[in-house]
């Protein structure tokens, strides 16, 4: 008998012929408490993880805010995944003539090498969905390859308010590969205190657009 057959045979022997049917009770909460402002809650919960959260009420304000973040953080090279809206980048001096504030936009097309990512100051993406209750961003395939949001040290994420749901059970299906991000990279390994910044981006800036 090969290993597969043997493990399966052991399982069948262990369970016996009459199997108990187990129903999963799903009476846990699917909705957030009544009257919850999910967008405000999301902003508060992400900030709890010491992410830098900024609210932008109108879509037209996004580009200005992105430009401001890029300047404030002193970003010189910004990774941009395929499909990221160009309109959000108009406040970044990306196509200028290489002056003092020049920011190099590094589009992942053709795919950037890992060394290029390592040498980039930041990445900017959207998210597929977000969860208010846990302050979680869900990144899917539309947000680009997983390495893009992992290797650069800063991640700027633009979150459209309509993509924010209240609870984990309300999340829409996001086909894998997917990454749930709740705050910047952190560790609790030293005396169980949360310390931001180990291997993933040490700075997470979340721009919440709309209300």
């Amino acid at each position, binding site marked *: 008998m090969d290993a597969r057959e043997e*493990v399966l045979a052991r399982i069948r022997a262990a369970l016996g012929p009459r199997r108990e049917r*187990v129903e999963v009770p799903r009476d846990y909460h699917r909705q957030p408490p009544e009257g919850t402002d999910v967008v405000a809650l999301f902003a508060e919960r992400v900030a709890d993880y010491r992410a830098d959260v900024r609210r932008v009420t109108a879509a037209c304000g996004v580009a200005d805010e992105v430009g401001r973040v890029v300047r404030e953080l002193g970003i010189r090279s910004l990774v941009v995944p395929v499909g990221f809206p160009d309109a959000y980048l108009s406040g970044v001096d990306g196509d200028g003539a290489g002056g003092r504030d020049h920011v190099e936009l590094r589009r992942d097309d053709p795919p950037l090498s890992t*060394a290029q990512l390592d040498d980039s100051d930041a990445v900017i993406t959207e998210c597929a969905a977000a969860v208010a209750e846990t302050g979680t961003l869900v990144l899917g395939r539309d947000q680009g390859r997983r390495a893009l949001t992992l290797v650069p040290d800063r991640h700027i994420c633009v979150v459209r308010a309509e993509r924010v749901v209240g609870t984990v059970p309300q999340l829409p299906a996001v086909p894998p*590969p997917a990454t749930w991000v*709740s705050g910047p990279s952190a560790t609790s390994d*030293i*005396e*169980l205190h949360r*310390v931001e910044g*180990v291997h993933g981006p040490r700075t997470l800036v979340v721009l919440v657009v709309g209300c």
Partner: protein
Amino acid sequence: MSTWLGMPPFPEAAREALADTQLRANLRAATATIRAKRAAVVAERADWEQLREAGRAIKDRALRDLDTHLLRLEERVIAAGGTVHWARDAAEANRIVIGLVDAAGADEVVKVKSMATQEIELNEALAAAGITAVETDLAELIVQLGHDRPSHILVPAIHRNRAQIRDLFRREMPGADPELTDDPVELASAARAHLRRKFLTARVAVSGANFAVAETGSLVVVESEGNGRMCLTLPEVLISVVGIEKVVPTEADLEVLLQLLPRSATGERMNPYTSLWRGTTPGDGPREFHLVLLDNGRTTALADEIGRDALRCIRCSACLNVCPVYERTGGHAYGSVYPGPIGAILTPQLRGPDPVADSLPYASTLCGACFDACPVKIDIPRALVHLRTKVAHGAGERAAMGVAAWTMAGPRRFALGRRLAAIGVRLARLPGPWRKWTEARDLPVPSGETFREWWANREGPSGRP
């Protein structure tokens, strides 16, 4: 990392651990911190009990039809471009992994912390085959640099404080700043710099998985630091060694388990990073994915109608953090990769009879705190009592069981008495081998004082040991 072989049985190991006051101070501080954090985030969820009940049922549903779900998982992983291997035991799993690393032509692998690979002592097997395993989890790195053993499921270096970690980094980490301070932020940065080159150049990664979804073939790794994402994303070949009990039937099951796990584990609403992947994805991540499904004693546990509850465990370590015995002895005393209350019921079942494993079901006062904390409602006291009847045959052990029941007097006496009575335990007051356990503490339990009272007194402001 040294192996667990040749570890003394629990009472002797516990006595050594208790003599180490630094260890106990580190543990007390750390477990107190985590208990408070967990309590706060659990209290936030009005539906916590419903979530626990759903979590219990999800895992039971998976286990009651384990063969069906594993076959489905296998089919989906293969359909998504992965390869599935089956391993009856540790040696077989290690052989498979070594073969895959050899085939990739690599002599070094990066690893993301995984209980399953610790259980099978994969690092030692790789070393014997000339392959270096680089642990990338901060705590595992601390353990590896210190030539030490992990002492906690989730925070393997919980027994080390920041000053000890600083000293270790200065001494053992190539290129570490000799001026490195004990500020956790600086220590984390040092680890980041140390491992970055490894991540960017590694060709093979080895991981475990927290969950594997039968319906879709998705694997899930829950982590904090981003080292998991590095391992799962950057290398060309990914090998995941996963216990067969990690399978869950449906994607919807994750909405429960991913709420239960982080709150129970690190006391966070959500952990920083959760990765979900399915086979391989062209242009994103490894081009080869291997899933190694590991039995290694799990089917033996499955055959035991009470013992099988231990297979529901999602390795959150909440039971360790609330356990008065664990808090005093630390994880090493359990002589197993699975310490604390869950280790006391899992190790004897996975490993079979040996002096360490046989002593573990006695490493408890049956106070029941672990059961209350467990997000998948494993009745650890019930399993402990049951396993005592399986591992022990002498009159002494039976007496020990009685004493354990006696120490339980107090607020829980009634409930526990009923529970014990229901399974036919005779109450007795004779110490037997239990004496070893009381000796292993720095003060004996005065007669007439319950464990709970004794415990409360030990924690009093003037009574801190």
